[in-house]
């Protein structure tokens, strides 16, 4: 925490300061992006330079600019520190509304649905929940597939880069889920930017152990075209290299597979009054709640800053299209005036 003093200085931004800085960042993203859009329209999808992870490339961590490697390390620190109180904090910060979003996210995806006539030619569904940590989405997916759609063949893999978060999820699964659903659930440690290097979840044995996944210890990988549904809920904004993660999602999905992302977005779809109330709440109340409940102001300061820095609905939709997905309609669905948004894309058949 060498920069703790610097972060402390930024921890109470005035609204005046909040507005201009993200704009600079958005510009950065769109610039990086526009340079590629012409290249990807021609058919052979060559990975553009910005979508190849580079530990020394600058990216943003909240309002700070750090290298991709540094961001990975710091995000790991944030989530290791908040893992225990993560679910409680979500309830407090969103007044419990995140449950509504997550339920909506899962029920509109309708995992496990299969028409009764004729068995599926593509085999049992495999759902990959990236940054799934504490299992919120994965457990809902399992419930929807196994109970609502009565399809026990659906498997769910929870992947996270952080063992501390996965361990919380694993503990919840053993207490909350029926045995049949635990059977269908697996936990892997992986970096979403490179899913070819994974390993099954290793229990954390000592306090001092590194909880962050090291690719050198990988024992397995997720093969190409092996996943029906790739979900990432409130995770993608923490990634060091989002274009790389989107391309990796494209790689592991089967043709016809669906990429679905639930993420905080720009809350400007209702009125500016709502937006400014929302910003007041995020920048004043959330770090305070974090300090009081989780005893960690910095992590929640990072959380709200990273939300502010995340691209708008349209920009993120364009990033998804750039990674080779096709979208339907406008490509996203706003929730609660754009506080969160669901982006969906389908990997087209070649």
């Amino acid at each position, binding site marked *: 925490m060498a920069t703790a003093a610097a972060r402390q200085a930024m921890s109470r931004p005035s609204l005046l300061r909040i507005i201009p800085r993200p704009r600079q960042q958005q510009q950065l993203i769109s610039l990086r992006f526009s340079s590629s859009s012409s290249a990807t329209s021609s058919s052979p999808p060559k990975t553009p330079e910005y979508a190849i992870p580079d530990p020394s490339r600058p990216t943003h961590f909240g309002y700070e600019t750090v290298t991709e490697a540094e961001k990975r390390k710091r995000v790991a620190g944030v989530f290791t520190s908040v893992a225990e109180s993560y679910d409680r904090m979500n309830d407090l910060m969103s007044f419990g509304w995140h449950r509504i979003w997550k339920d909506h996210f899962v029920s509109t995806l309708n995992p496990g649905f299969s*028409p009764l006539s004729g068995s*599926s030619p593509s085999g049992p569904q495999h759902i990959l929940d990236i940054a799934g940590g504490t299992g919120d989405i994965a457990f809902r997916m399992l419930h929807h597939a196994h109970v609502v759609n009565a399809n026990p063949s659906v498997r769910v893999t929870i992947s996270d880069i952080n063992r501390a978060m996965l361990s919380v999820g694993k503990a919840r699964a053993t207490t909350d889920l029926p045995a049949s659903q635990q059977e269908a659930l697996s936990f892997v440690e992986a970096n979403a930017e490179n899913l070819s290097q994974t390993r099954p979840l290793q229990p954390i044995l000592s306090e001092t152990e590194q909880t962050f996944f090291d690719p050198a210890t990988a024992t397995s990988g997720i093969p190409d075209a092996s996943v029906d549904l790739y979900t990432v809920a409130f995770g993608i904004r923490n990634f060091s290299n989002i274009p790389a993660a989107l391309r990796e999602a494209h790689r592991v999905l089967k043709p016809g*597979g669906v990429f679905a992302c639930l993420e905080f977005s720009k809350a400007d779809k209702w009125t500016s009054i709502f937006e400014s109330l929302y910003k007041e709440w995020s920048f004043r109340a959330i770090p305070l709640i974090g300090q009081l409940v989780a005893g960690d102001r910095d992590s929640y300061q990072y959380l709200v800053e990273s939300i502010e820095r995340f691209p708008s609905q349209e920009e993120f939709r364009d990033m998804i299209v750039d990674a080779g997905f*096709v979208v*339907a309609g406008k490509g996203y669905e706003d929730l609660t005036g754009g506080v969160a948004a669901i982006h969906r894309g389908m990997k087209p058949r070649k």
Partner: protein
Amino acid sequence: MASAAVTCSAGAARRMLLLPPRPTVTLLRPSVPVTRSLSTTANHSSVCRHSHTQQQSIRSRHIRPESQRTPASQLQTRAYHSHDHPAPPRPFTEAETTLLSAALQHVPEHGFGPEALAHGARDVGLLDISAAVLPDGPFSLIRYHLYAQRTGLAAKKDDLFQGTEAIMTVSEKVEALTWARLRGNEVIIGKWQEALAIMAMPSQAPTAAKELGCLADEIYYLAGDLSVDPSWYTKRASLSAIYAATELFMTTDRSPGFQETRAFLRRRLDEASSLGGAVRSVSQWLSFTGSAAVNVLRSKGVRI
């Protein structure tokens, strides 16, 4: 109030009533040559339409030279047929169209639901989960049916009129087109009640109502109706109501060839035209009486 309405100019009344833009009629500008090619005209379609073979009578309205027009890029799209506004983007992407048109084939058997979508996805080599990419699930399928049927009317037009277009009246054409559209529901009529129920849901009702308005506009456009007075609205509103009622009637009609529905439609259209005639007579009497009253007052020296 009546006197104000009577004395203000036609243009002002048009602005006050927020009427649709008035087409420039040949009679008003006889000296301006027809400069726009047919292909340019076709680009100026609207939300409700994408490509049409256009009637000469409608085309002849395009007599303003290109230089007097605002570039299409600076204009907003319109929810009705407009030759002066750019075409809106297609409401369905290519991937959606492929999936939805395949799914539509399964609707007569499986209804407007996830089954039809999953079967459609399998047909085009996709996965059961692929339909999850659609923004509104089963409603996307209904919306696609409405859209495909509506835009398909233009192609059916020539078959319907079979060269008798010149001698048919607008109301005859409206009836023929409305009937053609209703026949479009024939294959899925067994599942149409559930679709109507989904369309009536609060989250979907605005889209469904807009689509109905577009259909009425499409029918009047194809019938060659050129009215630019308040009847532009009343015609579309009454046709929308008649269409919605007839569509509902059709879901319970068991008569061969849906004759009962046809008769129902004709009765409703007749009623609308006789009611429309009555309204016209009353408003004509009112406007005459109003202007007479104003003139009487003016003759007494009142400054109106």
